[in-house]
């Protein structure tokens, strides 16, 4: 919500602007009630507020645990956990006298220190927001506002100054790798789709991260849906597709609603539809909701779901780039990947000497004092993220970090110098996955976590291939034995052998990554597994 007071006051020329986060987290914590109370309170006080944006929200800032968030951009003051009861004081102090309400400033639970705004808050100050640049700034329900902040400039450039080959070349040269999964080179995938013969091609935005944790996709959709739509349209132009599908989680209804609204507005403004920007390029986007079975965001199961069937995996090859939706060449990219595309086509938006495609959106949770969704440069170490950005510890009170969701890996405290980039993580057979990063406190149990994540994968398994369908259940049984203290040393060997077999023989990444996750957990937390053996059970109590 962007509100400007029209009341002139001494020494202040510009109206005091305020923005209220309208992301899922803040709404669930009562942001809409705060907005109502603010409007009513202003009316009651005879201080009419001018809403200078069409709708009443800005998108998610990623600092969800502190919501509802109320921010004053001109003053750089961020109020956290604001309730209806705080509105009168905000109106009187901050609007009326430009005074800060100290008790509403973010108070770091670990240090007790209060932070005034975004500039001094390490959660924001340690970020490099490129794809998230407009999240928390732009009104996601107002295309005009997005356009005023640069949305669709890159699409215009692509259609008027570039040709498909040049765009694919730009993407290749940028070094952009798929931001979810194993980091496949994006330009290469685009080239395969473009070169595969066929009159009809599709672009699919994969918004199903398949992670039982916080997702960057939701933040992007709720905060800046036009960035994703623009990326899809550019991708469509580059690979020769006229139709796109945006595949979203129905569990995130606000994100779906924002995406639907943004597509409708983009169509109305001519950024989607026929002869976009006066060119011969036509492109449309359909929103498709997933009904819950994600298969870890696996591409071929996504295609079956899009076709109205059961979301089960297909054998590969053929790969979707050659034979995807309805047997046509199909480009499937994650939403964060697509949001990078306008920045590659129009890098000037980032400023001089800033190279695009050099960041990763991560969602940090667990044993930290500043959890949330943030964007960091590739090459940032896990320790920097945990300690400096999220306010956690790298000392004895932290056991390690689990990276990348259910198919990711748990790394121990001694491995926190690992950097967030595709090469470093491959050393540990890890991938960035959905970008989730869960910090394990000293009282966390790696066995319980492994069991939780395998249970998720077993539940998500489509059942097509026996290694995944039966294997993940067998792994779960072994982990149950270990958790309850009934296992023997030989069970650890059986577990490892079984996981290696599943990893080698599963049809898709869901089974492979679930098994890989257990192997990594066994390797990095062997002592903890051994301490569960022969009647000793779990020392943390987490295994129940």
């Amino acid at each position, binding site marked *: 919500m962007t509100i400007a007071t029209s009341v002139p006051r001494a020494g202040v020329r510009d109206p005091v602007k305020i923005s209220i986060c309208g992301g899922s987290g803040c709404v669930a914590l009562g942001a809409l009630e705060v907005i109502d109370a603010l409007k009513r309170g202003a009316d009651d006080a005879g201080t009419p507020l001018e809403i200078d944006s069409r709708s009443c929200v800005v998108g998610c800032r990623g600092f969800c645990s502190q919501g509802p968030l109320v921010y004053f951009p001109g003053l750089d003051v961020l109020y956290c956990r604001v309730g209806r009861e705080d509105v009168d004081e905000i109106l009187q102090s901050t609007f009326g006298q430009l005074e800060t309400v100290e008790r509403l400033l973010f108070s770091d639970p670990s240090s007790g220190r209060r932070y005034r705004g975004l500039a001094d808050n390490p959660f924001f100050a340690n970020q490099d927001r490129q794809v998230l640049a407009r999240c928390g700034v732009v009104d996601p329900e107002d295309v005009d506002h997005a356009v005023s902040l640069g949305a669709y400039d890159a699409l215009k450039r692509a259609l008027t100054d570039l040709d498909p080959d040049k765009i694919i070349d730009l993407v290749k040269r940028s070094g952009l790798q798929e931001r979810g999964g194993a980091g496949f080179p994006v330009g290469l995938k685009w080239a395969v789709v473009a070169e595969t013969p066929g009159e009809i091609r599709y672009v699919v935005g994969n918004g199903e991260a398949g992670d039982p944790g916080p997702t960057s996709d939701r933040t992007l959709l709720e905060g800046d849906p036009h960035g994703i739509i623009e990326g899809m349209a550019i991708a469509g132009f580059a690979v020769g597709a006229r139709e796109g599908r945006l595949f979203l989680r129905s569990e995130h209804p606000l994100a779906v609603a924002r995406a639907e609204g943004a597509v409708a507005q983009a169509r109305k403004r001519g950024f989607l539809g026929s002869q976009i920007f006066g060119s011969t390029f036509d492109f449309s986007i359909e929103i498709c909701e997933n009904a819950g079975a994600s298969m870890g965001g696996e591409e071929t199961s996504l295609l079956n779901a899009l*076709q*109205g069937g*059961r979301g089960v995996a297909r054998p590969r090859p053929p790969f979707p780039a050659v034979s995807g939706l309805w047997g046509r060449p199909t480009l499937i990219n994650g939403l964060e990947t697509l949001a990078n595309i306008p920045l590659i086509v129009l890098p000037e938006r980032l400023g001089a000497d800033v190279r695009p495609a050099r960041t990763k959106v991560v969602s940090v949770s667990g044993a*930290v004092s500043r*959890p949330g969704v943030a964007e960091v440069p590739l090459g940032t170490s896990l320790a920097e993220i945990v300690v400096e950005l999220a306010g956690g510890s790298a000392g004895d009170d932290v056991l390690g970090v689990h990276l990348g969701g259910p198919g990711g890996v748990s790394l121990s405290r001694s491995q926190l110098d690992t950097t967030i980039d595709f090469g470093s993580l491959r050393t540990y057979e890890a991938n960035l996955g959905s970008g989730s990063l869960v910090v*394990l406190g000293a009282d966390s149990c790696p066995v319980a*976590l492994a069991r939780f994540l395998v249970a998720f994968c077993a539940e998500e398994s489509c059942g097509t291939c026996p290694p995944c369908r039966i294997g993940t259940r067998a792994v779960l049984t072994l982990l149950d034995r270990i958790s309850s203290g009934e296992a023997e040393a030989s069970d650890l060997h059986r577990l490892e052998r079984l996981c290696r077999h599943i990893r080698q023989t599963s049809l898709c990444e869901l089974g492979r990554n679930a098994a890989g996750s257990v192997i990594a957990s066994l390797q990095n937390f062997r002592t903890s597994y051994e301490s569960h053996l022969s009647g000793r059970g779990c020392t943390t109590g987490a295994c129940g």
Partner: protein
Amino acid sequence: MPFTGDITDSGFFGSEGGDGAEALDPAVIELVDRLQARAPAGREGLIRVLLALQQTFDRVSWRVQELVADRFGLSPAQVAGVVSYYPQLSSERRGRLKFDVCTGTACFLCGGEGVLGQVTRAADERRPVDGKPSLAVRQQRCLAVCGLGPVVRVEDRAHTVTEAGAAEGLVEDLLGPSLQPEDEF
């Protein structure tokens, strides 16, 4: 957008003992046709239509599945295969009052698994004798307020349930005298 008119999908067979001969409410037929017209063309629109029907009726009954199959040119078994596969679709009622328990990784580490058990037990204890649930306890993969975990969401508001018994207390609050299940069904 769920349909909010005064129609029912009663007249189904199967789980509630009908023989399948009853006619569907014409408004249901009209609704399905309207949803199909708004959905992507062909079979691509199937899941969207089913999700909308689930949201409207709290289930997709067998009879409605037959109707949907007819409209999409599929066999009832094909539609039933889709409904039974996806966790957010169901041929049985789950309860109109939604109680979401976050089972994301961060909430799990804070004890979210225990909360799910507490809420499920509390809801089961209050289930009416005819088997129709009053409360739909849903596992959600993430409610987006990590850091406040373990978290539940009741009717669009998030609550932290760190205190023992807090989750049961919320169920108790919801299913008080003013919200008896028979009033809902």
